């Protein structure tokens, strides 16, 4: 079976800096895959490469059997890859509801010639609003639908970002430190939500995370990056015991 996501010898240079160096990895469908490594090891760059925010210097990104290496990020999203950001990148001056309605694909009312005539898109918009109710309920933000995103707490922002991704009906969700800046208890809840995305919607996840104790509770497989290269990979137990990983990560 072809994996949902496959990176082949991926490389990214920024001037003289090789941020990602010859990385090959696979993410099978329905899995929760962790990506760990010290700061500056190239994890976020790897996420950017997959999401199409930046193009690789060499190598390939294959998604569901197709080469998507050079697609811009909007096309990548349409193919079914959504992403979260390390810093919450919400529309802070828009309401929670507007935040989740914006990413819905192929909205009729987004075309300027239909937009002024409500009857062309009102029906569709109501259906999207009802889908948004479900997505917001999923992350327990429904009662805040009318709130400006800037008024949410840090943890709620992370959850809203996940709900926003959900509205694009992704097959693969890339999350960059979904628990950064969140209290430990809420961090665990966020991971429970993430696990439900896989169980309820069949969404595959690739997660960059520093809180290994939580990640290891949920991940099926873990890749370790160091200085742009893949250092190790394996099941959770394997990685937790790996001497080199412990040395790089914990300085042991």
């Amino acid at each position: 079976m072809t994996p949902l996501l496959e990176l082949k010898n991926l490389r990214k240079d920024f001037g003289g800096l090789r941020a990602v160096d010859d990385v090959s990895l696979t993410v099978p469908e329905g899995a929760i895959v962790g990506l760990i490594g010290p700061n500056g090891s190239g994890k976020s760059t790897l996420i950017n490469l997959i999401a199409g925010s930046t193009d690789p210097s060499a190598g390939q990104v294959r998604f569901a059997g197709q080469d998507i290496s050079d697609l811009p990020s909007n096309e990548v999203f349409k193919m079914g890859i959504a992403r979260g950001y390390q810093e919450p990148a919400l529309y802070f001056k828009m309401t929670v509801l507007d935040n989740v309605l914006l990413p819905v694909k192929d909205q009729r009312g987004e075309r300027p010639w239909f937009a002024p005539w409500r009857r062309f898109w009102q029906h569709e918009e109501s259906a999207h609003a009802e889908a948004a109710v479900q997505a917001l309920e999923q992350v327990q933000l429904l009662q805040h639908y009318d709130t400006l995103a800037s008024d949410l707490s840090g943890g709620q922002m992370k959850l809203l970002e996940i709900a926003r991704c959900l509205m694009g009906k992704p097959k693969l969700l890339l999350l960059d430190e979904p628990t950064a800046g969140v209290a430990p208890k809420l961090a665990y809840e966020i991971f429970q939500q993430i696990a439900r995305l896989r169980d309820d919607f069949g969404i595959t996840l690739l997660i960059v995370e520093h809180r290994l104790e939580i990640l290891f509770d949920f991940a099926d497989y873990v890749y370790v990056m160091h200085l742009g290269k893949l250092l190790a990979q394996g099941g959770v137990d394997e990685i937790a015991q790996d001497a080199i990983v412990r040395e790089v990560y914990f300085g042991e």
Partner: protein
Amino acid sequence: MINIDIGATAISILTLFGIYSLMSISLNLEYGVAGLPNFGKALFISIGAYTAGITYTRLLPLLAGAEAIHPCGPTMGGALQLRSEIMASQPIAGFINFALTLVFAAVIADAVGFAVSYVTLRLKEEWFLALVLLVGGETVRILVRGADDFICSHNGISGVAQPFFFVADPRSRALLFMLLSLALALLAYLCSQRLYHSPFGRMLKGLRENEEVTRGLGKNISLARAQIMAVGSLMAAIGGVLFALNTGFVNTNDFVVNLTLDVWVMVVLGGIGNNRGALLGALLIAIMDRFAQIGAIVLNMGGSEIEFNYVRFIAFGLILLWMLRYRPSGLLPESRLTTDAHDVVRRVIGASK
């Protein structure tokens, strides 16, 4: 003292308000909603004005079955007389010419707006568009001024007439033109309100706030920007047609950067992102404009040395600075909501309780 005709002053202010509204609403859509700093407003307004200058001197005689007279130089008097005869005796030809002027101006401005933005906005920084348009507007103005036969170069072209020219009573004529300009402004306002409160408006707001994320959420942002530039340019060009019709004269000197800045003052004053704010800004500037002119005349007649027209520039500059410092969101702040999806959700929540 001079006598101020209150009725005539009110009509001229409201006419100006309609014209300015078209300009400020268009900039509000581009900058206020979509975040595109259009510093080339004067270019798109001038496209409308030049189009009027050409249609009224070349197309109008054709529509009336007469032969066009070259409107520049020694034959200018004849051309003007021909225009007056046609406009007075054949109002239908005048109206058809007016309608065609609007269509041509809209199509040309649309094409220019779409083309300019589609090319420049593919670059990362939207401020590149601001510079291209700022420089482009001035370049086009100088080129046009140098093109002898186009609109009579630096002399400007006379002979633009408002469609109610055939009405004999000047007060009724002005009143009708005022209503026309207000009607077009109302149309632009309704259109932009509907755009704002639609998924298209929501996408544009998203674009303004975070371009990178909006692209990452599947939106073709170059296309969306070119589209809103096309809408904005269309409105600005129609404002330009009315501007020319109101003055009766098209001169390249009217379309310098000052005009662009005036429109910016309207939007910043009224409220960035709020269409009602754009209307309010246009009204306030129209009033100030007219009173600055009256003030200039009064001072001049009193033998004053002060050139009041410069006072106007200083006043506008101070308004801009004061607003940006103390009230950057303008007199009327932006609406929080986009579509009526919020009502749908409120109902769903209410039903489940």
